[in-house]
């Protein structure tokens, strides 16, 4: 009772669901990892037939808490009650036995297996002879998928189905095991806006059939849209819990971050100058040697941010790799300041003024076991002032590093610390500092805020805008539609290796972008069909595009 009063004091109204008893109660859970307390005395409860949102920034301890519930971590302190009875959950099997199912953020599916095989793995039906009864598996999956309206193809291989369907497979996997409580870990991160809508309908359907859902997210809008109640975590601690309808996005944001945050980014209109990057009919193959870019053309002018929106795996990575010299294009042209740099070495491109914030900072952006100072000079260690004959002038390297550390506010004990030991946000600051310090003409930023907390995101966004205002050309590739929409001046949509739409940011709507990202065709696209001089240029003008779906406006 005291805890509930404490929540009231924090400005939340907690209405007790007097009639129903909670199906899951986690009491005073503490989980310690070396050096950090991931969960500090956290308590949550979940009632049958409700959606509880677990809100918090990256690193707030949401996933850790759910891994405790699912038996992947043992808590150092605390107690779990399932249906009112104390439960010891030491591995996922225990959790499954108790009716708890988890859909992990990174899907736990085996790509070369079929949908049915993935769903039944671990509790496979066998016939009398001990042989795997795959027909029964398929039949069971079909039945379950009809019952809950989760459309899947049981015989399709997981590697060939869409991300949305993979997620449905994950949910079915949990339901097949008799899950009453479903944990969904950041389920919308990989989905298009339309798929997000579908998912919330599915979630509503599941709770209406008596299931309970714990929904981990850091997206405020989704909390407001689908959850019944919300619990907010910050730095491993529970900072509040209550009914969703009694709160607002602003209030939740403040609880999540611990200070007032500006949810929208303010920026001046762009002043585009000369064309810095011009990509013309670029073709390239992906890692599986299949065509990944099929005739991509666009340009980026000085002083503007061009955002590329799209669902993961539609050629964004290959495009960035071609532009930075990391992948050979099969044909086309890339002009940087009028010079064709197609298939040049990365170093040539760097010397042309191309900077690159890679999507995978730990593997491509940094050498984790080098010091901060060494990481700062990766682009230009071979030139004076850092190179002195065949030696490195470490005095100058360190002085330079100290300069960047203070300029970019990198939180590190010194420049001699291994980058590996920094937090994700500070690692990204090292990358950003290195790339921006070279006075680039063109900045290619690929998912520059992936996995960062709100503060670090704000920092990166401000820096990008500052670069724009200094007249740099910026190409922003991101899977976060919100990021694209708030930063870009122009937005291109990439789908299956082609640019399928272009619009100015102020006229773009999420529905329209999502529609294009999912491969929807535009009215304009349909109009140009059959016309001889169609081509992509015609389809993509500065005007906003109208979709053929009338309900999206």
């Amino acid at each position, binding site marked *: 009772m005291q805890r509930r009063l404490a929540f009231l004091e924090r400005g939340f109204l907690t209405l007790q669901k007097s009639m129903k008893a909670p199906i899951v109660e986690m009491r005073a859970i503490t989980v310690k990892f070396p050096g950090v307390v991931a969960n500090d005395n956290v308590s949550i409860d979940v009632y049958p037939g409700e959606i509880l949102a677990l809100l918090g920034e990256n690193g707030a301890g949401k996933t850790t808490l759910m*891994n405790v519930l*699912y038996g*992947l*971590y*043992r808590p150092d302190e605390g107690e779990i009650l399932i249906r009112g009875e104390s439960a010891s959950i030491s*591995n*996922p*099997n225990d959790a*499954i036995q108790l009716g708890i199912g*988890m859909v*992990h953020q990174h*899907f*736990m*599916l*085996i*790509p*070369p*297996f079929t949908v049915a*095989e993935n769903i039944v*793995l*671990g*509790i*496979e039906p*066998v016939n009398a002879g*001990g*042989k*795997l009864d795959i027909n029964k598996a398929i039949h069971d999956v079909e039945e379950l998928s009809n019952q809950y309206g989760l459309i899947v193809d049981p015989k399709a291989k997981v590697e060939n189905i869409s991300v949305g369907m993979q997620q449905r497979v994950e949910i079915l*996997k949990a339901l097949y*095991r008799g899950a009453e409580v479903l944990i969904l870990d950041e389920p919308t991160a990989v989905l298009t806006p339309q798929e997000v809508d579908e998912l919330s309908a599915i979630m509503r359907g599941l709770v209406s059939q008596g299931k309970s859902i714990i929904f981990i997210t850091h997206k405020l809008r989704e909390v407001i849209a689908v959850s019944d109640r919300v619990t907010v975590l910050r730095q491993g601690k529970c900072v509040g819990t209550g009914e969703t309808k009694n709160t607002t996005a602003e209030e939740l944001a403040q609880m999540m971050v611990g200070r007032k945050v500006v949810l929208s980014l303010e920026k001046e209109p762009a002043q585009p100058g000369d064309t810095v990057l011009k990509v013309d009919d670029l073709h390239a193959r992906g890692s599986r040697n299949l065509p990944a870019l099929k005739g991509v053309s666009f340009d980026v002018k000085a002083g503007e941010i061009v955002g590329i929106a799209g669902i993961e795996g539609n050629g964004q990575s290959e495009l960035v790799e071609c532009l930075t010299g990391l992948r050979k294009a099969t044909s086309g042209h890339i002009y940087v300041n009028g010079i064709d740099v197609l298939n040049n070495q990365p170093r040539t491109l760097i010397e042309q003024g191309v900077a690159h914030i890679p999507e995978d900072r730990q593997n491509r952006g940094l050498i984790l076991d080098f010091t901060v100072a060494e990481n700062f000079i990766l682009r230009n260690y071979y030139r004076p002032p850092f190179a002195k004959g065949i030696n490195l002038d470490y005095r100058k390297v360190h002085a330079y590093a100290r300069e960047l550390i203070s300029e970019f506010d990198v939180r590190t004990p010194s420049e001699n610390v291994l980058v590996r030991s920094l937090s994700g946000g500070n690692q990204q600051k090292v990358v950003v500092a290195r790339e921006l310090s070279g006075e680039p003409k063109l900045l290619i930023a690929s998912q520059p805020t992936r996995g960062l907390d709100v503060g670090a995101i704000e920092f990166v966004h401000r820096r990008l805008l500052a670069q724009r205002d200094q007249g740099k050309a910026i190409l922003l590739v991101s899977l976060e539609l919100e990021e694209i929409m708030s930063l870009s001046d122009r937005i291109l949509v990439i789908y299956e290796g082609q640019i399928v739409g272009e619009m100015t940011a102020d006229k773009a709507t999420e529905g329209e972008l999502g529609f294009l990202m999912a491969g929807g065709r535009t009215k304009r696209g349909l109009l140009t069909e059959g016309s001889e001089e169609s081509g992509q240029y015609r389809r993509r003008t500065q005007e906003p595009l109208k979709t053929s779906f009338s309900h999206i406006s």
Partner: protein
Amino acid sequence: METNLADVTIYIALVVSTLRMATPLILAGLGGVFSERSGVVNIALEGIMLIAAFMGMLVSHFTRAPWLGVLAAVASGIAVAALHGVLCIKYKSNQVVSGTAINLFSVSFTGFMLRKVFEHAGQSPPVPKVADWTIPFIEKIPVIGAMIGKHTPFVYLSLLAVVISHFVLFKTRLGLRIRAVGEHPKAAETVGVDVFAIRYLCVLLSGALAGLAGASLSLGFLSQFRENMTGGRGFIALAAMIFGKWTPYGTLKACLLFGFADALQILSQTLGLTFIPTDFLLMAPYILTMAALAGIIGRSVPPAASGIPYERQQ
């Protein structure tokens, strides 16, 4: 007529020889399939075979019971594989390094033991070997009978093992779990599959199969142990496994191809065929192996988690 007859005997000799050469490869290759399908690279097959060939010979020598020797070979194969398993699964050491260490150890160990026990280097005295099996009826069929009607039991055991392995891997729940563990161990664990147990089981199974392959050398085709008598067959078996895309039937086909190359080489030597230098024929299986490894012949995708030690969180 005489040339015609000669042709038939040549074919018979080729088939017989191909099967003989392929048998140890098939058994060891199946061992590789199980091990790698579960996610453990077992480069130690070569060393396991060698130690098993020695132990089989030793037991057969002292007990005069060749089948006891076979049992000893299988048991020693399992024992050495267990060592590899503990290193790779429990201590998460580099699987290739562990395998290489076992291979190097096995050469010296068997050489040392040979001298210690028989006070003789190079080879052991002859020991009782496993008697050939004849297959009723088939044996009577002209030509075919001569080709496949009478062989050392290992030939038939290896073919049987292919069929059983295929069934286990692709038709049973154990097989589904083995493949799941080799592709995405974490996904398997989250649905309650014991990753470590499956991996140990598969590594031990690969030891048993490689042990049988070793026995086929010293108690099946020969009746003695010779120093380093495996002669790289463990590695060729691995190549056959890759060539066969990590499937039992694919491995069988690859082993038969490698066996055929070997048989061709032996035959051309006995017939004195000189238009191709025998050195080239001797090279053939190894060139095929390299081609298979480089992916020139058929692109094959290994199990995704093969070679990566699995670590539970926390």
